[in-house]
């Protein structure tokens, strides 16, 4: 079993540590109570990271369909629970509430990796049907909760994994058009009125200044008043006066930008980018074909989540509820993200080269 080495990709580890460190520092400013809770979650997450690192991802790939079905059952089951804050996203377990949609991220990545690496028809349209189906069905269930934020991560995940496994650009374009066509029925049948209002508010914030755009404008004020150097830790007026809502979860980037300023916010984004590029680097030189795809999936989903969250907080995208990975308070998201990074590092254990691509002369799949 020990055909893999014990190499650790320090780029990923260090960038992760920087992100988590910055996150904890400002979470303490945003809400001290949640900071201490988050420290507890961090301990659990460290275990998840280690597990992801040690477990052979190939075993997970092998059983990915079973895992997928298991999570799928939870995803159906969650729709029959009573809603928390208007959404049926949580399954109450003793001690904490679990979000099946978070688990679905891993399950879907594993299953897609299995499907896309086990046959060679990605270049044909028929090869794209199966990945499309396994993505769209859980996506529908997640939108039904409703959890638009998590749902919005799946299309880029599918596209990125299909793309990197060799699909034709033309086919992807067709899928993209089909996806856009799917937006219309989504607007008509799936999206709730408040979600539509959020999009309307995003498109025309002046008209919706009362309720829908409140968070948005507060967030912009927080970020804008941070300036270049920030207002200093614990000094953010919008933050400390509770004018910025959800500041410990979805809008924590607003706190960081207000108190840390442009430098810290940019530094954080660069750290994320390094983490993602590091993940893609691991994918690029991983020895196992399914491992490559898993690494691409993990990098993509973390990257997409960061882009979506920061895009929302800076009012570059319509408001959806999505956490900032590794920083926002929340057990499920934290554990799942750490586990994914553990898997990523695990994939990086067995590389086909150490120094660089030119010097490597071994077998390169595809």
């Amino acid at each position, binding site marked *: 079993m020990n055909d893999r080495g014990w190499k650790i990709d320090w780029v990923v580890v260090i960038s992760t540590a920087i992100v988590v460190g910055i996150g904890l520092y400002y979470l303490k400013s945003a809400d001290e109570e949640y900071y201490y809770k988050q420290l507890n979650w961090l301990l659990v997450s460290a275990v998840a990271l280690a597990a992801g690192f040690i477990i052979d991802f190939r075993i997970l790939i092998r059983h990915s369909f079973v895992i997928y079905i298991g999570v799928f059952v939870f995803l159906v089951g969650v729709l029959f629970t009573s809603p928390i804050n208007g959404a049926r996203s949580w399954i109450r377990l003793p001690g904490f509430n679990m979000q099946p949609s978070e688990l679905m991220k891993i399950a879907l990545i594993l299953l897609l990796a299995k499907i896309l690496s086990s046959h060679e028809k990605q270049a044909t349209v028929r090869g794209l049907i199966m990945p499309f189906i396994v993505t769209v069905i859980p996506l529908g269930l997640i939108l039904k909760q409703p959890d638009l934020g998590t749902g919005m991560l799946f299309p880029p995940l599918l596209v*990125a994994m299909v*793309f*990197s*496994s*060799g699909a034709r650009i033309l086919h992807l374009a067709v899928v993209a058009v089909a996806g856009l066509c799917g937006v219309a029925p989504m607007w008509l049948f799936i999206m709730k009125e408040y979600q539509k209002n959020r999009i*309307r508010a995003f498109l025309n914030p*002046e*008209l919706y200044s*009362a*309720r829908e755009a*409140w*968070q948005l*404008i*507060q967030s*912009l*004020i*927080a*970020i*804008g*008043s*941070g*300036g*270049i150097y920030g207002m200093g830790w614990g000094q953010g*007026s*919008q933050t*400390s*006066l*509770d*004018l910025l*809502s959800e500041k410990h979860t979805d809008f924590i980037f607003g706190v960081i*930008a207000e108190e840390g*300023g*442009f430098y810290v*916010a*940019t530094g954080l*984004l*660069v750290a*994320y*980018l390094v983490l*993602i*590029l590091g993940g*893609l*680097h691991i*994918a*690029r030189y991983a020895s196992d074909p399914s491992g*490559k795809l898993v690494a*691409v999936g993990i*990098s*993509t989903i973390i*990257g997409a989540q*960061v*882009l979506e969250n*920061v*895009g929302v907080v*800076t009012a*570059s995208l319509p408001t959806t509820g999505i956490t900032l990975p590794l920083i926002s308070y929340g057990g499920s998201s934290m554990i799942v993200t750490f586990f994914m990074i553990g898997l990523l590092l695990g994939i990086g254990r067995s590389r086909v080269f150490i120094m660089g*691509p030119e010097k490597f002369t071994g077998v390169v799949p*595809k």
Partner: protein
Amino acid sequence: MFRRRTVILGFIFAVGFFLLIGRLWYLQVYTSEYYKKMGERRLHRLRPIPPSRGSILDRRGRVLAGDTASFDLWMQLASYKKIAGKRKLISNIDVLTPESVYEALVAAGTQREIKLNLLKKNLLEHSDFVEELSQILLKNDAEISSIENSKERVVNSIIGILSQISVKSKSGIYKSQRDIMHSFTDPRVMLNDISLKSYQEIEQIQLNPYTKDKFEALNVRGGYKRIYPYGELMAHITGYTGNLINSEYQQLRGYWDDNHELVPGDNKIVKSGHLFFEIEPGSEEEEMIKPRIRRSEGKDYYLSGGTFSNETVGRSGIEQWYNQELRGRHVWRVEKLVKPNPDGPRLFINAGMRKDAINGKNLKLTIDVDFQQKVSNILNDELKKLSREPKHRKVLNRLGYDEFPGVVVVMNVHNGEIYAMVSTPSYDPNKIHDPDYYKSIIDDKKFPLYNRAIYGVVKGASPAGSTIKPLVGMAALEEGAITANTHYICEGVEYIGDKEYVCMNRAHHGSMDVTDALKVSCNVFFYHAGQALGGKRLSSWLRDFGLGSVTGIDLPRERVGHLPENAFTGIRWSLGENYHLSIGQGAVDVTPIQLAVAYSTIVNGGYKVVPHLKYDPSDPTLNYPKGRFKFSDKNVNLIKNGMWKVVQTGEYPRGTAFRLGMIEGFEYIGKTGSAEAGRRKNRVTHASFAAIAPYDEPEIAVVALIPYGDHGGASCARLVKRVIKAYFHLDEFQEINTDHEIHQDKEWDEYESESDSNGALG
């Protein structure tokens, strides 16, 4: 291919992140100032700070009306909101739609009642708003006992606000639907004086962006509550306060008419001939309320203008007359949101420049509360005694009264300062805003709201009766119509044709001069004196004495009274009417305060004083007389002599006020009156007695009127005597003894200490 595609993926991510960093640069560097300013603005709010109203003090500085801090809950039924770009009227209370309220308001009669009751039921049973507000009030206000009680209170106040909305314009025409609906957006007082804890809880809910929608209708304003420590005793003098109403705001600030033309306001309101409310041009107050246009997205919205936060204005008495002096001035104050304690609540504090509202000026009155209290006690005591007499039962039963109403005015004859003015029954200005209480005093047959000192009898005319005789005598003497030696023979009745004009009880007074005629109140003498004077001269003299015109006392709604017009012109003026006018009957209508002024004129050297309540010796408008008569001393002494006889002559025929009015060892003068009013079947007699004391150097005029009280000598004389005694501190020891008769068996030292304290008060 895989490797190339991961590079492409990485490139896409890098582009995405650099776009975000660009966005951050735009927000945090390029437009940072804009957002900083916006954030600062959001932390600040501009609040109109209500001023406290000046206190009303008595002449020795005791507070008769003053402000105490309170929190008031204001409600805005509905507000305009933009929904998908359209401006719509949205209800702020969950179960009330503007349409349903409008329907209920424009319905007529019982339909309106039914619809309002439906709304009420709906509010009581289905409204989360009412439920939550009631819970908060129940939790924090000690006086509310149960949730039902609390809900009832909340719903009643909402329904009260609904019924305040007028559906008709001033001219009585129904307003347009748009105008009625628009007035739903005016904030109105919902509950006065809620507790500090309720206020804080409501404010915390409103500060939270997620819950603020719930209480959008509410607005807690810090303000002041008017307190009247003496309650009923001073009610007719101080009056009470209320809030400025919409039509008054329109008069002050102007308004937009239907064509969006600005109808400018006057900036001031005059009431009862006195400046009631004025906004200085260019002041912050004008800024606060003026109508304005808001331009938004190329459209103009015509805003009707603001209201003051909790503007209290006088609605009667001194509060109304001197409103402009008593009221303070509103100012804007900038407040900043802070969080003094990381775990504590967020608070708005005064930011930077400390600017307090300009409080109103205090006002001192000529009234002495101690004396007023004594007069009030004496009056109530006398009225009680009078009402117990069997001969008065009949008239009281017919009127449906348990006790007589009555009034006493005590005025300085030289400068018109009023020392006491007691009108019974009275009302409690502290409770006037309680709808049940207000209804009870409105429905009271004895009309407690009216100050009889300036209004007379209230129901029906208030003829002067025999109290007019000194004035008629004075006029006749001055005009030379009669002299000191003129004697007329009274045979108890005088005839014009076959019509009888009787003297009191058809008494045969025999031959008498003017002093004796005053003493026994002989009608026949004055018939002849009036006849000799003639209608024109008689009426113009009476007018000069101040009858038939306001005295100018600083109280609103003073009754003008009446003098018959025909007497001035002489057209269709009969001798019979002349007879009646000479003895104060018929179409002559006099208030006690007019009588006090007229009597003062005789004894103070002919000065027509202006009666007033405001104590300010340096104010010329108050203390200088309106005019002066040139009376000859001989005539004045003659009239004074006659009025002296009324009180002081004990041998037969006695003066009409001697039996009950005479004071041992103290000389004062006066004239009784028993004025008949009403038609033959319902004829009633109003008792009055006007006195000047003391005889030698006149100081005060005391006028008492007991409507329906029969004869002045019998009903009012003892009352006036006791008032004069109280004023000049006569018979103190005797008074104390009679007060304490029933306490004879008390221990000696306790008795002694009590009499000491009473002595000190007296």
